[in-house]
């Protein structure tokens, strides 16, 4: 008897929590189809806000910026992070405490301190040398900085999971280091490379604070555009962009669910 009430209570908390987690997103989606310019009262179904969205050049630009930033920073971070990950593995018997500390620094530093110190630094360097003008370039630099640790740790843990004798075998098989990299290293750590790339990509797309502080006047990404639109005043148009972004996340969730299932089979 007591067990049953406990189980019911647990299920109740679970469904309540799910409701709590999804209600704000649901409201955004719902009001993006509102014909009235209101986020409190729903009048009629309409696609008007979406139509306005696709006429808005700023939004299209912001979307483009987000993509360029995410792809280019992920590629750079992948190359640099892989090298560190391999170096950490190969030389794991040495005392590399300083390197570990350096790699954890971007992870433990609060976003706001990260963003502001880069902004202050870039502004000062720009004042002195004219380099590093705030814009997509500085944003890419900042994003690569917070992506490197994640790539390095993923690649490192993949190497740790491998049988060490494989490396000896590869050394015997392929004489040149370049061949070893192309025919042995890259294929064996391919799953790690793929997941590191996607993690970097998501981290970049999801980031707001660091982008916000390192952005220039013409390099607004989607979250920055939404932020400034909210600051100007809440409109259902924001609901429409937000709905599209929620849709993208939902697709990713469904994919990962299917992927999970396949992996189990």
């Amino acid at each position, binding site marked *: 008897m007591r067990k049953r009430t406990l189980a019911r209570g647990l299920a109740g908390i679970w469904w309540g*929590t799910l409701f709590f987690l999804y209600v*704000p997103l649901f409201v955004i989606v719902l009001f993006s189809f509102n014909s009235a310019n209101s986020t409190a009262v729903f009048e009629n179904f309409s696609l008007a806000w979406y139509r306005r969205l696709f006429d808005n050049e700023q939004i299209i630009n912001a979307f483009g910026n987000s993509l360029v930033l995410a792809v280019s920073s992920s590629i750079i971070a992948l190359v640099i992070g892989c*090298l560190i990950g391999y170096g950490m593995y190969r030389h794991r018997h040495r005392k590399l405490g300083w390197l570990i500390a350096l790699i954890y620094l*971007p992870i433990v530093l609060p976003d706001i301190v990260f963003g502001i110190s880069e902004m202050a630094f870039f502004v000062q360097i720009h004042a002195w040398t004219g380099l590093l003008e705030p814009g997509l370039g500085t944003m890419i630099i900042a994003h690569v900085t917070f992506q490197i640790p994640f790539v390095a740790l993923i690649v490192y843990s993949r190497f740790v999971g491998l049988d060490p004798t494989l490396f000896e075998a590869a050394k015997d098989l392929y004489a040149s280091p370049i061949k070893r990299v192309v025919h042995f290293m890259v294929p064996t750590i391919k799953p790690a490379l793929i997941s590191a790339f996607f993690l970097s990509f998501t981290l970049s797309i999801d980031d707001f604070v660091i982008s916000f502080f390192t952005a220039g006047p013409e390099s607004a990404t989607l979250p920055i555009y*939404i932020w400034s639109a909210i600051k100007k005043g*809440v409109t259902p148009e924001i609901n429409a962009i*937000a709905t599209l972004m*929620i849709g993208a996340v939902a697709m990713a969730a469904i994919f990962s669910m299917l992927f999970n299932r396949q992996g189990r089979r």
Partner: protein
Amino acid sequence: MVRTSPMASRRRAVVSETRHLLFTVTPGAFWIFIFLVLPSAYLMGVAFMTNGPYGLPQMPLSLDSFERLAGVGFLGWSPGNLYTLLRSLWQTLVSTVLVVIIAYPVAYYITTCREKWRPILLLLVVVPSWTNQVIRAFGWMNLLAPGTPLSSLAESLGLVAPNMGLYPSNFAVTLGLVYNFLPFMVLPLYAAFEKLDTAQVQAAQDLYASPVRAFWHAVFPQTLPGLLAGTVLVAIPAFGMYVIPELLGGGKGMMLGNLVANQFSGSSNWPLGAAGAILMLIATFIGLFAMRRIGKRLGGGEEVVI
């Protein structure tokens, strides 16, 4: 003919290994050093400079910015900044406790479900946090604004003044923080529950322990590593939060992150902002250190991975 002694060949191996280490590690180490260590060091330096005419740092070195941070201004001492600091600590504490209270039953519930469903249930908890945090805060703005059902309900219950709505307010900030960080607590707690040794719980029940005592003595110690990991993932970023207080809190809901950020935009005072950033860093490292100590002491030798 040159003969290589074993000594020389070993030395050559060491040299080549070192070259390999440098080749692989240098680009990344350099990158992080130039684009993060140097900027942070620069920011620390700025905190000890004087505020110039346009809010930019100037010589000579001074402790002015720390005095300003403590509330000393042109018009004598004012408690504004102190309130902001206390509010940040309070919001962090309250939201972390609430997250723990919700996450425990949720994580446990998932482990009671069939194994087939567990990954999907976990995914359902995590997916909302994949959407951008600006959008999530905006969702709550929609829900809590004056005139919405929730606000009307709170008004009719007399919880808020008429036509004020639930946002902007400190309550909205707490809500936003709990919403934002819940998944970060559920995941490590779930991992702890999944490894739970049920024999201990069984033993406690066989000895007629009340459910509360059984939980406290048999379940809680086993989930402690997960709880500590979750606390680190929740409390430290919550303390430095910028987006949620800025959107949901308004002027009276400001936290330390907003105080710092404001000094680099609108009301410019770089040295003051940098001093605030140092304060935030100190708090972060004290928090991390404390969690490690607690983890080591209570984890019974089991290193809590942070």
